[in-house]
């Protein structure tokens, strides 16, 4: 079977099957797509540009809080608040990126700075009454209203996140084939050589930062609307940052489909281990961690790298 046919079949199944799924499975599928989406957003900066952010929670939280606060205090629909949150997160990303890249922070140092910024926002949120401090914010969701991004039942949320994944994938696909995509890959591979070839390394990294943080913030709004509750630890905590980078790395950083593939493998594994080891606190995370170590040591290029190798050797899917 060709790759294209397989893709069409997968999309058709993802569109048609969910209404038939039991509630729990639908929830898992929403989780899968949600982390795939965050992975796609992270991948623009971490995968294509090779700038390993460990603090995408900062942008996620900005998105979640911006749309939720605007909804609570100004009655603004989260559909609009989502975009404003995205713009705000992109602005914050540019600030963070400029500070880091201007002074030549690379590799683990850049990761640490992004982690520190996310933690800083978390602590600020915990200590600020106006944003609900550590109690967080409840998103009013009693009356379903599509215009206000509030639905009854899970299914509409599924289609929202499905659409977000498709749009983000299309965007990543375009970036990969554009001048920006090549410039980012050049910066990732060798920054000096990229500069010598006329690539504005700082400018390109900032562009990746802005796009990545914008998309990540939209995910924050989705989360707030879907779970109808946000708090500083959920949104600004390291859990989200890791949740964004893992699918991309396990699936294949710097590839369009990698984050989706990664999430389809990781998210169910995480659910299964949690279910299998319920009642033993932390055991599921240990098992999950062990699986991760195995994947990363045996598939350093991620699942996409593995598939490419197989195909290069002439094996079919």
């Amino acid at each position, binding site marked *: 079977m060709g790759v294209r046919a397989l893709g069409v079949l997968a999309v058709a199944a993802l569109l048609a099957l969910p209404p038939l799924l039991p509630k729990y499975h639908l929830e898992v599928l929403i989780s899968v797509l949600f982390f795939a989406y965050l992975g796609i957003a992270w991948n623009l900066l971490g995968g294509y540009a090779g700038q390993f952010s460990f603090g995408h929670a900062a942008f996620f939280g900005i998105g979640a809080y911006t749309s939720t606060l605007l909804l609570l205090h100004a009655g603004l629909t989260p559909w609009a608040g989502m975009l404003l949150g995205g713009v705000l997160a992109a602005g914050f990303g540019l600030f963070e990126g400029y500070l880091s890249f201007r002074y030549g922070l690379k590799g683990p140092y850049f990761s640490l700075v992004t982690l520190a910024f996310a933690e800083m926002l978390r602590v600020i949120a915990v200590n600020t009454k106006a944003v609900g401090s550590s109690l967080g914010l409840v998103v009013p969701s009693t009356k379903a209203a599509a215009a206000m991004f509030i639905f009854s039942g899970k299914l509409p949320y599924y289609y929202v996140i499905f659409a977000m994944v498709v749009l983000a994938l299309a965007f990543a696909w375009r970036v990969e084939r554009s*001048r920006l995509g090549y410039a980012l*890959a050049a910066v990732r*591979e060798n920054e000096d*050589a990229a500069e*010598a*070839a*006329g690539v*504005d*390394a700082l400018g390109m990294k900032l562009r990746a930062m802005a796009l990545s943080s914008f998309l990540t913030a939209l995910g924050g709004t989705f989360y707030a609307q879907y779970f109808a509750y946000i708090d500083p630890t959920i949104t600004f905590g390291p859990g989200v940052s890791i949740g964004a980078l893992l699918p991309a790395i396990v699936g294949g950083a710097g590839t369009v489909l990698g984050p989706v593939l990664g999430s389809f493998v990781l998210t169910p594994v995480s659910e299964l281990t949690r279910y299998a080891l319920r009642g033993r606190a932390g055991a599921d995370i240990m098992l999950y961690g062990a699986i991760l170590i195995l994947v990363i040591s045996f598939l350093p290029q991620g699942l996409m790298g593995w598939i490419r190798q197989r195909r290069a050797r002439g094996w079919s899917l």
Partner: protein
Amino acid sequence: MVAVSLLEISGLTKRFGGLLAVSGFDLTLDAGDIVGLIGPNGAGKTTAFHLVSGFQSPTAGSIRFRGGSIVGLKPHAICRLGLARTFQIVQPFAGLSVIENVMVGAFNREPDAAAARRLAGEIVEFVGLGPRRDVPARSLTLSDRKRLEIARGLATRPEMLLLDEAMSGLNPTEIDEIIGLIRRIHDRGVTLLIIEHVMQAIMALSDRLVVLHHGEKLAEGAPADVARDRRVIEAYLGEGA
């Protein structure tokens, strides 16, 4: 109107702590020149290249390209003005294919991906990497990496190209091929400033040789004259030679 030289370097100085890597260096290149920059190891040749291409900023002195100062510009901006360089230690984008490596340079002149791919394709053929265009750069031989380094520079459509030891580490056959390639690049109207340790190559290629020693210009002139210069011979072979 007074004719402006393509590259005018004057009083160029770079100090690293107590070390004067380049000191009061003057050099002028006109369009169409091929100038060889030679000197013993540590003479300051590569530092001079770093200064001209914007990877380091000079302690003193001026660098003008096409009449305008380029001191303080970032490397990518200097590249876009038409002054490209290669690296002594080749620096391919290892994970990208040959054509993709060259496309990165080509995008400076052709923002559209299809047009950039066409331009890159022509240049890949021109440097003789046509059969290897879809191979990842990491799997190229040293000789092919040297060609790739040149191709990536050429793809930015430079008026002037700085070649930093394009032949080091190559065997005599490969050196002859690179000499031929450099001649063809010059025939396309690209002005060349070349650092090279392979003496017969630089003697054969250059219209003019410049010798750097301890960061200062020791001699400048036609290759044959420079080769006979006593001070140059002493610099290479030591006092009393």
